[in-house]
């Protein structure tokens, strides 16, 4: 089935084209109503119906994960959860466009991308649950630990991509960041290093319009974040971040360019943070509800669903199956996250170095002695209580 067009062919040497990025209107395949966009160009991209349905299904599940996680913060089961509700086209489209052998670097708002990669939901939420800082094996999943300091993962992605290139592998590294993160110095250094070394890296900016309370206009005076690519001599593209087909396409194309040795790409995906920054934030203090309403009708999941329905690709059975899978996931999260996580105080000292220093061994022993003494006290209280109870019962 042929439904989509590639972006421009300008002959500029950049397949994604300077004229694309100097025109700040984002690349789009599906418009807000789920119809084929007027921006369609000549060349067609083929996405099998199977792929489109798999993408849609992942979005259904990703959204359910996000809603469930938000609920579990209210129930006290997670310390905090930065929602990516409404950003599923970015979270899922980008990951599905990569190979499992590619690396990616998520931020704290990218749990849905991690679940999409296949990481266990409870391991995904370890950081936000608070039982450790990272719950999965980054090497196994080729997924870096989530970063909270903004844009600091950018240079890691550049370095990992350079390493892959030097090793002769065709691995690509994708780093997520937000619009706020583009103001950080590390964002600049990451793009510059990746471009200088022509490293196979993709910098995927989810421009969701807000950095906590600060709107994009206070982060940059540029007409588009994607324009920054010009300054680094790298390809750049601005894409509708609520159009998952467009997102998949630009990431796949950036990855192929990277694998061909044509260097890094900056992608700006224009989207919107539908929820507050986290549960601890009150978005009504800095933005109007009408703005949220404007974006509600641009919902990425509804848009794809409308298109698939109109194209006759989505059956009621498929909807029922996806909804059941999503509910199963939510039920599993409720059950597993509902239990108190097991933590081990000895881990505090175990992983700081390959071998603990003599000083850490001393401190570990001191903590153990404290806890043993606490336990002894507790046992004595228990035993005194049971003595008193048996006394009273006599």
């Amino acid at each position, binding site marked *: 089935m042929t439904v989509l067009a590639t972006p421009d062919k300008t002959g500029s040497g950049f397949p994604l084209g300077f004229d694309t990025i100097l025109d700040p209107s984002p690349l789009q395949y599906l418009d807000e109503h789920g119809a084929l966009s007027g921006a369609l160009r000549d060349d067609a991209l083929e996405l099998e119906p199977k792929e489109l349905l798999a993408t849609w299904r992942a979005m259904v599940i990703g959204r359910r994960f996000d809603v469930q996680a938000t609920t579990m913060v209210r129930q006290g089961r997670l310390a905090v959860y930065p929602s990516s509700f409404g950003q599923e086209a970015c979270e899922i489209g980008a990951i599905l466009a990569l190979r499992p052998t590619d*690396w990616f670097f998520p931020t704290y708002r990218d749990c849905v991308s991690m679940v999409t990669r296949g990481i266990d939901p409870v391991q995904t939420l370890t950081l936000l649950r608070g039982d*450790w*800082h*990272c719950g999965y*094996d*980054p*090497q196994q999943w080729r997924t*870096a*630990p989530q*970063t909270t*300091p903004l844009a*600091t993962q*950018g*240079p*890691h*992605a*550049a*370095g*990992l*991509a*350079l*390493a*892959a290139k*030097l*090793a002769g592998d065709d*691995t690509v*590294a994708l780093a997520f960041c937000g619009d706020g993160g583009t103001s950080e*110095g*590390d964002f600049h*250094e*990451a793009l*510059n*290093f990746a471009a*200088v070394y022509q490293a196979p890296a993709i910098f995927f900016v989810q421009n969701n319009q807000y950095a906590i309370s600060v709107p994009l206009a206070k982060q940059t005076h540029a007409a588009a974040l994607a324009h920054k690519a010009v300054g680094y001599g790298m390809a750049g593209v601005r894409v509708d971040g609520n159009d998952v087909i467009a997102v998949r396409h630009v990431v796949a194309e950036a990855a192929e360019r990277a694998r061909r040795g044509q260097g890094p790409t900056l992608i700006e995906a224009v989207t919107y943070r539908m929820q507050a920054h986290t549960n601890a934030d009150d978005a009504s203090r800095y933005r109007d509800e009408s703005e949220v309403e404007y974006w509600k009708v641009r919902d990425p999941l509804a848009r794809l669903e409308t298109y698939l329905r109109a194209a006759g690709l989505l059956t009621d059975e498929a909807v029922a199956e996806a909804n059941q899978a999503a509910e199963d996931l939510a039920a599993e999260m409720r059950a597993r996250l509902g239990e108190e996580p097991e933590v081990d105080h000895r*881990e505090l000292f*175990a*992983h*700081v*170095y*390959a*071998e*603990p*220093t*003599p*000083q850490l061994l001393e401190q570990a022993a001191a903590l153990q002695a404290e806890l043993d003494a606490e336990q002894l006290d507790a046992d004595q209280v228990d035993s005194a209580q049971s003595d008193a109870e048996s006394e009273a019962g006599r």
Partner: protein
Amino acid sequence: MTATLDGATNTAIPLAKALNQALRDAMGADERVVVFGEDVGVLGGVFRVTDGLTREFGENRCFDTPLAEAGIMGTAIGMAMYGFRPVVEMQFDAFSYPALEQIFSHLAKMRNRTRGQLPLPVVVRVPYGGGIGGVEHHSDSSEGYFVATPGLHVVTPATVSDAYTLLRAAIESDDPVIFMEPKRLYWSKDTIDALAASGSAAGSGTGPVTGQATGQRIGQAAVRRQGTDATLIAYGPTVQTALEAAEAGAAEGYDLEVVDLRSLVPFDDATVTASVRKTGRAVVIHEAVGFGGTGAEIAARVSERCFHWLQAPVRRVTGFDIPYPPPKLERHHLPSVDRILDAVASLQWEDR
């Protein structure tokens, strides 16, 4: 260890050359070792520590970077995640500060963050300290920032042999190592001594990280001079000053022991404690500021562990609590033989 030890030399070479040899030998021994930083390629580094490495190993193994220390550090972290063993150069102590966030928030914490699944075998070479007439930002002693950051090893050689063996051990370590190079010792010459390299000159402490190539342990102090009256505890650039003070002190009737820490993290409590319990007196010496400086921690540890053996409070001879002075004034700031001997003289000798 035997005479087949890597790196042993018969002729005296400058400390910078010993570092260069350590890099060359490490790169030859392990192709995962890569060297990069500002001007480290064709130029060979502003102190020539990487001289000839690009020529010998090619641009994929030793290369110049854009002028951006956070980018250098972040790139090193990413490469280590992929299995490389980067050795990066911060051109001067004060120019490492843009990299501090990467060092503090990621380099030091990644292993712990991932329960050991993502170790970062990165060596960060930092030329540090004063005494070379450098203008502002070229003479800082920045070790205190690194020492206060769990997850980093912090080592600093004071001899040509240690420059070689400690750097080899640092590169072999699976943990990040901040390798502090006393830049005023770059031109001091000696042989790389197989005996010293084997660790036989070391004290009684046992460090956790053993270099396969040289037998050098990270975390092991060395007793550089035996004495009975007081222990001078120094590291990096002040070891030589302490040894000179000990010589001068002998003429004044003090038999001074000199401990070269070599490693600030892990700290060799065993060697330091044994020495101070033997002598009963201690002076800690470093160039960095005293207030909140590494010497404060050392003095506290010595006091806690040697209280009943001490004949006098532990004294410190450090830089003043001021921004590093301009070159025309730095001699007032740096610990000197006289200042060390004044501190020794104040250690309550009334009962002698």
